[in-house]
């Protein structure tokens, strides 16, 4: 068990190192790139140079670089991301609600995509080489190839033509909901199109990952051995093949989270979903550096942490790591 402890320690140490690299990277990315965030404000005819000086001080841009860096690390660790240049309030005030909204979309979409992917991947691997497999693999590759934003637009076209689902936003704004049910259904109605879009584009890759993982496992000797013991195919699938095939899925899912986030940004922009992707998009246009920095930081750190969790989970589930 102590070696397991060592392993954990190593993973956590790596995560801390990664987070440190991300913070550093984040800092320099925004300082060394051309342009100063205050410059966009120059276009305001009402702004005087005295005010620009005030803003520079307010955003800490007049300090020497190393001090800015030190402050940035310290503040990032404390969850203090500074003041948004555009919204003129604490970054966390705009960031956290967006993050929450993104999770409302991302969590069910990823979960659904994974579950569906596992299901169809399993069928495809099971019927390997048949028409069913060809269809499932082919359609997964096709879904994987579809540009997210285009799929979203197609769904918008459909929804408008059939006036079925709302195509924008997260809930009907300003609606005096008479009770929680109505409100929840309003949210769900708004969730349908973005959820379908995101699930479909994520689903393809999970199917293929699952299929290939399962095909590898089905070739293993212990599968044939189980068969020679008189096990039914269903039993083998459930007891022997799936657990071994799902195991690598855990880390692959975590590694693929970066892609997932990318898909989420495009989906949010297309459907006007007020999540972190839309916030990033808006902040790019407003050149709101502090928000961008914090958004990048928080997404990257979340993914690093997800990877650590996946590693730990993996090692917990896989006795080969746990006890060696």
């Amino acid at each position, binding site marked *: 068990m102590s070696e397991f402890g060592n392993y954990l320690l190593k993973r956590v140490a790596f995560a801390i190192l990664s987070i440190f690299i991300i913070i550093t990277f984040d800092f320099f990315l925004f300082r060394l790139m051309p342009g100063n965030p205050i410059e966009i404000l120059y276009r305001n005819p009402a702004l005087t140079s005295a005010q620009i000086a005030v803003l520079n001080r307010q955003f800490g841009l007049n300090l020497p670089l190393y001090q800015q860096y030190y402050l940035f690390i310290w503040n990032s660790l404390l969850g203090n991301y500074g003041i948004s240049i555009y919204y003129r309030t604490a970054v966390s005030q705009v960031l956290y609600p967006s993050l929450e909204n993104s999770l409302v979309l991302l969590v069910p979409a990823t979960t659904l995509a994974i579950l569906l992917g596992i299901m169809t991947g399993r069928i495809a691997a099971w019927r390997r080489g048949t028409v069913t497999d060809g269809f499932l693999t082919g359609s997964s590759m096709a879904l994987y190839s579809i540009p997210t934003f285009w799929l979203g637009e197609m769904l918008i076209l459909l929804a408008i033509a059939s006036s079925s689902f709302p195509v924008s936003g*997260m*809930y009907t704004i300003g609606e005096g909901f008479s009770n929680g049910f109505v409100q929840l259904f309003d949210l769900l109605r708004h969730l349908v199109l973005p959820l379908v879009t995101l699930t479909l584009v994520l689903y393809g890759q999970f199917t293929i990952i699952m299929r290939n993982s399962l095909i590898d496992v089905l070739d293993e000797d212990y599968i044939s051995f189980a068969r020679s013991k008189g096990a039914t195919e269903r039993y083998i699938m459930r007891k022997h093949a799936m657990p071994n095939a799902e195991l690598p899925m855990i880390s692959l899912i975590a590694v693929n989270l970066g892609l997932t986030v990318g898909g989420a940004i495009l989906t949010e922009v297309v459907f006007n979903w007020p999540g972190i992707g839309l916030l990033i998009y808006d902040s790019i246009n407003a050149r709101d550096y502090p928000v961008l920095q914090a958004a990048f930081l928080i997404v990257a750190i979340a993914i690093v942490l997800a990877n650590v969790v996946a590693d730990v989970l993996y090692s917990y589930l896989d006795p080969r790591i746990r006890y060696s």
Partner: protein
Amino acid sequence: MQKQRVVFRSILIVAIMLLASMAVIGQSAAGSASQTATSNATTGQTIKVGWFGTYIDTLNPFLSYSELTAWINMNVYLPLVSYDAGNKTIVPALASSWDINYANHTVIFHLNPSAVWSDGVPVTSADVVYSYNTAAQNYSFVASEVSAISSVKAIGTETVMVTFSGVLWTMWAASIFVVPAHVWSTVNASTYAGYNSTGSQYFVGDGPFVLTNYVPNQYAQIEKNAKFFIRSEMPTIGTVIFEEFTSQSSAVSSLQAGSIQGLTGILPADVANFQGNAKFNVTTSPSIEYFYLSINVAPYGKGNPTLRNLSVRQAIAHALNLTYIADTVYHGYATTLDSVLSPTNQYYWSNLTTYAYNPSLANSLLNQSGFTTYTSGGIRENANNTSQQLSYTVLVPSGDSLEVDAANIMATNLSKIGIKLNVQAETTGSMAATIWPNLTQDMDLWDWFDNIQSAPQLLSVFLSNQVVTGTSDSGYTNTTYDNLWAKLLNATSQAQAMAISGQMQEMLAQQLPYIPLFSPSAINVYSSTLTNISSSYPGGPFGGLDYQTFTQLVVKSPSSPPSNNNTLYYILGGVAVVIVAAAAVAVVAMRRRKA
């Protein structure tokens, strides 16, 4: 042995729980909104207005430079005076009368004695003094508008005396909002977002509406202020919601679906879709948006030096077929410009030097300036100095596809006279980074919102002190021009101010740091259930800056709410519960069987 199943299953369960809790959190946020909304629901009808482009940045009127914020604040706070619908005449607002003394450079405002804040506290001169002092602070974004004021003094509770330098007093008197000192003195005005997100009372204002809810990036909601003291302007509608959209597409689809009732910024190409539809009305108004081609003329600037040659700039101006661009890009919904002030501005001067589309004149201007030889690519170069080539890059905001299209056509225009124009579309942030502080660009195609129609404020863009870290994107410097501006600020009569600003506009028209291009019409579409729409303001009824849209507007027939059939939801809810319960039972049963 089944650990893995358990883990997978618990991941799923956690995910579902997370979704549910998120939904609940989202609900509770929305819930607070709906409570305030329903509490006043009886006072009138709700209309929703869409907005896309620049969002609300902050609701603090001293810190915001978003148009939408200005529009909202206009309905929430009163300035001392305001304009009538034609935007020409000063009319009473918070001040019911005023005495101007040009000799002493003072104006004495007499506040309306019945003026009262929405929380019942009377509006006093202390509020005015507080607001004007705050506006003058370093951090304030409206500081330049009050820079002509040397002092603000309360003479009694209902009288304020302001000492100012010139005739342009309306510039500040009509645009500085008076905020409640008794509320604002408890916050730090330099960081205050303009609302208190924790309390139920968001705003205290004295306008026809009060702000009741605001969710950044999503919407802001205002409701009729029952205590509004100008009874004749008491709104008939109860609630206005400003909904923010990322794109024209999502806003227009919401309009078509009936979930918003008014929208500005409809693209010319889409007008036809609404004109034939009885459910909508379309209005086109002159816009306050003003497109220009800025040319880097700064003597030390890092742009192409040939642009400092006036003949080259004149040739460019003659080569641009603005009418064609207005027809092609804006399908006729745009007017071409000749001044750096938009025609709707009170100080617009109409007798200016203009540059008609005339490619042959453009060619001869270039020939006379010595750009007579061509590179192999057909680009003109200086016969005596072949390093001087007429090849430029123009920066265009990538966010506005029409501007990019216009720039592309301009490139075609210029290629006819041997000038190569390279169109580079960028985010406005990247453009800003190229332009300030070093002026490394050749040209930029950008826009201003000439939103202070009562003052020639855009003329300040060309002042020498705006060059390095100011608003100037052309790098134009001219001491004569600077002196005229100083004279303008100290003018003692409207006519004198007009004449000086006309002189300044003519200087710019001759020297061409900007080539004014066009002002696209503001196209507004609104539901035909809305009546009594005032569209005389530049920008149209839903284009911002219009105080009267919501005070006059009447909803003809109750706008049918989006079919929220409660029974249906109950049925659906019941079905969902049954399904979840059945699934849960099935899962439990299966586990038992396995064990």
